[in-house]
């Protein structure tokens, strides 16, 4: 008899794939149920430990992944099966999801450790870790899912966690409003994503990646359907990744605790939109119109957000606008079909932006909750570790070699240069502004004299080990992270690009031109030189203004002209308020007054009154005397008999 060999290895792989998201979920359950009962040491152990084990398992998956393969899927169970629709609960392990796994669990673990120090005085310690673990779980579902439906669950899950964590200090009304704003803005994007999933199912009869992408090329390039699908998917990405015009929630999301800003609103969740576009790169390659649109939105966001960042005084707001701007860069790269470059920037950005946020958290921690840079200054002596690590982060984001941001940003700019020179110029402008506001942040915070109160001066201290250690690790990653993608002039071997290449083979077949490098080395050197010089000039200008001249941003309300416009974020929030929120509110109030009170209420109450009156009239029949009931009954029977007789 022939025996079917169950491949032992596959079963083990499926178990590992299942465990990676399951462990943080178990952590969430334990910490959530034990909120307020478990001691902090146990909460920390469960919260960090579960993510650490997931990270180690992810490393194992990464190491055992066969090089150059197209990836594999492991089906856990059949989730939805209705008619021709079949959605398995399956995980897809390939180059993209593997690196995202490492990123989410790795950076997630570092930030969990940091949180243990940062949140140690907070009464909601257990709740915080429960939410963080739930976030990691949702994010892992998002990146591991093998179909759009699973991605959507993760997508909603991370949105929910984002909401919960932004409003973590839920006794403060503005924080709750920020949380609601984030949720609603994301919902607008989610609607686009959901419609895109419906269209995908309608067109291809499946939502599983492998089936959709193999069938994708059957439609003609830039057909209406494919353009609609990609545009709607991009609307989802706009919401989640804070692109124009749905970006306003991200700066407000800084109301949450700083580790949350670092994990969710810088390193992982906001890059979900980029992940989604990368995942659907075949569809996007077939829709050049959408790509152009993506590039324009990305570029506009990069420039726009960077310009707002120039004059913000809240240390976290600067970083928030910087994040929006960097996400714009990533979409710009996607728009010019530099897919692996965009992902490269996702990675390096995760390192240095998480580092900058955690550094800012360390500064805020030392300043007893102060976030206004006008009240800081001269902190480099009190916070040496934070200073050095944040300096590395700043150099990385500004694009100064050999730090990570230089390589990824330069690669993006090089691809944009090939695509369109004007776009490149605007990209360079954004890069200039990035460098300026980051150095402005550094100089205002760490240089000059201390501008805070005496009380704060006495309190100044370097953060505990659990907070500085993550900073150091991230600083190392920000320093060396760029070497996984050396530009062609230094090395022919772009290790990240080569690793990711199998993901983009289908796109490459569709549009081979976009993937060929035809830039000579001289141009490449020139571009690199220009971007470094621009970053340095911005840094020098910032130095002159904020260190040599010791100028401090003026108090609220004294700005003039353009400065005032930018300081108030171009009045975009006010604009949305007056063109969307107010009319909707007015409409609702009007509907309430006239439709609800004037039409619906009287009708509903009228039915109630009729029924009541009828009952009041009829209840006299129920006299309680059996005789009368019997008489009625007999009379009824006789009536039926008589009628029966007559009818016949």
């Amino acid at each position, binding site marked *: 008899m022939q025996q079917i060999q169950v491949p032992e290895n596959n079963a083990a792989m499926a178990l590992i794939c299942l465990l990676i998201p399951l462990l943080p979920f178990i952590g969430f359950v334990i910490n959530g149920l034990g909120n307020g009962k478990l001691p902090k040491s146990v909460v920390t152990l469960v919260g960090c430990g579960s993510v650490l084990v997931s990270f180690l398992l992810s490393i194992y998956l990464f190491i055992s992944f066969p090089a150059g393969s197209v990836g594999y899927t492991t089906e856990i169970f059949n989730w939805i099966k209705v008619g021709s629709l079949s959605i398995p609960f399956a995980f897809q392990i390939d180059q993209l999801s593997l690196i995202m796994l490492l990123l989410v669990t790795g950076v997630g673990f570092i930030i969990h450790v940091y949180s243990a120090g940062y949140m140690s005085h907070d009464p909601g310690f257990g709740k915080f870790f429960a939410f963080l673990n739930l976030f990691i779980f949702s994010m892992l579902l998002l990146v591991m899912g093998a179909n759009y439906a699973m991605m959507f669950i993760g997508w909603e899950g991370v949105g929910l966690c984002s909401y919960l964590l932004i409003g973590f200090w839920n006794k403060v009304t503005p924080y709750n409003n920020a949380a609601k704003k984030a949720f609603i803005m994301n919902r607008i994007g989610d609607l686009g994503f959901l419609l895109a999933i419906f269209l995908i199912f309608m067109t291809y009869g499946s939502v599983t990646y492998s089936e959709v992408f193999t069938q994708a090329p059957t439609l003609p390039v830039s057909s209406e359907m494919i353009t609609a699908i990609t545009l709607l998917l991009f609307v989802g990405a706009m919401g989640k990744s804070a692109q124009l015009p749905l970006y306003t929630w991200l700066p407000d999301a800084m109301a949450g605790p700083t580790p949350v800003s670092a994990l969710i609103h810088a390193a992982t969740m906001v890059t979900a939109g980029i992940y989604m576009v990368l995942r659907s790169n075949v569809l996007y390659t077939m829709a050049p119109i959408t790509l152009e649109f993506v590039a324009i939105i990305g570029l506009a966001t990069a420039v726009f957000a960077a310009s707002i960042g120039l004059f913000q005084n809240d240390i976290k707001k600067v970083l928030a606008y910087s994040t929006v701007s960097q996400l714009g860069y990533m979409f710009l790269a996607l728009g010019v079909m530099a897919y692996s470059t965009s992902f490269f920037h996702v990675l390096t950005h995760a390192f240095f932006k998480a580092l900058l946020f955690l550094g800012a958290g360390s500064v805020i921690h030392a300043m007893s909750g102060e976030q206004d840079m006008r009240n800081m200054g001269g902190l480099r002596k009190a916070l040496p570790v934070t200073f050095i690590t944040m300096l590395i982060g700043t150099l990385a984001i500004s694009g100064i070699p050999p730090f990570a941001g230089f390589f990824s940003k330069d690669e993006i700019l090089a691809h944009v240069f090939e695509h369109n020179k004007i776009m490149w110029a605007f990209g360079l402008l954004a890069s200039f502004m990035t460098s300026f506001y980051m150095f402005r942040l550094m100089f205002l915070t760490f240089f000059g004299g201390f501008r805070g109160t005496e009380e704060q001066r006495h309190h100044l201290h370097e953060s505990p080990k659990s907070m500085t250690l993550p900073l150091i690790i991230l600083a190392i990653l920000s320093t060396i992270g760029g070497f996984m993608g050396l530009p062609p002039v230094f090395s022919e071997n772009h290790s990240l690009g080569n690793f990711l290449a199998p993901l983009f083979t289908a796109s490459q077949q569709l549009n081979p031109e976009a993937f060929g490098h035809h830039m000579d080395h001289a141009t490449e050197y020139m571009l690199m030189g220009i971007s470094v010089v621009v970053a340095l000039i911005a840094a020098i200008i910032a130095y002159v203004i904020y260190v040599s001249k010791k100028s401090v941003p003026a108090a609220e309300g004294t700005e003039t002209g353009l400065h005032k416009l930018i300081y108030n974020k171009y009045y975009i929030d006010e604009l949305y308020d007056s063109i969307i929120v107010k009319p909707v509110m007015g409409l609702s109030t009007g509907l309430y007054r006239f439709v609800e009170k004037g039409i619906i209420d009287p009708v509903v109450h009228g039915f109630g009154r009729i029924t009541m009156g009828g009952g009041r009239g009829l209840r006299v029949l*129920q006299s309680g005397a059996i005789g009368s009931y019997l008489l009625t009954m007999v009379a009824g029977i006789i009536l039926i008999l008589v009628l029966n007789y007559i009818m016949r």
Partner: protein
Amino acid sequence: MNEIPEVIRTIPLNYYLFLSTALFVIGVTGVLLRRNAIIIFMCIELMLNAVNLLLVSFSAYRSDPNGQVFVFFIMAVAAAEVCVGLAIIVMIYRNLQSTDVHLLNKLKW
């Protein structure tokens, strides 16, 4: 029809029908008009037996034993019903010192 015994055919079927109708109407009238629970109860029995009589007579005139089997069942069930009914009447009497059904009019709005 031609198998019906001569003895039975001496009395026409209609006589039975009139008798049972009369019995039934007496029963109904009693139930409607009398106030004593025991009398009402007896009137119900009267109606039951009027039906029984009807069933039996049709059974005989049509040479179909089913009707008679039915009657046996009705008598058995009626006996059981009498047990319960009389017990209820006894309880009513113990509580109210009377069997007047018009006193039992508390179940109303």
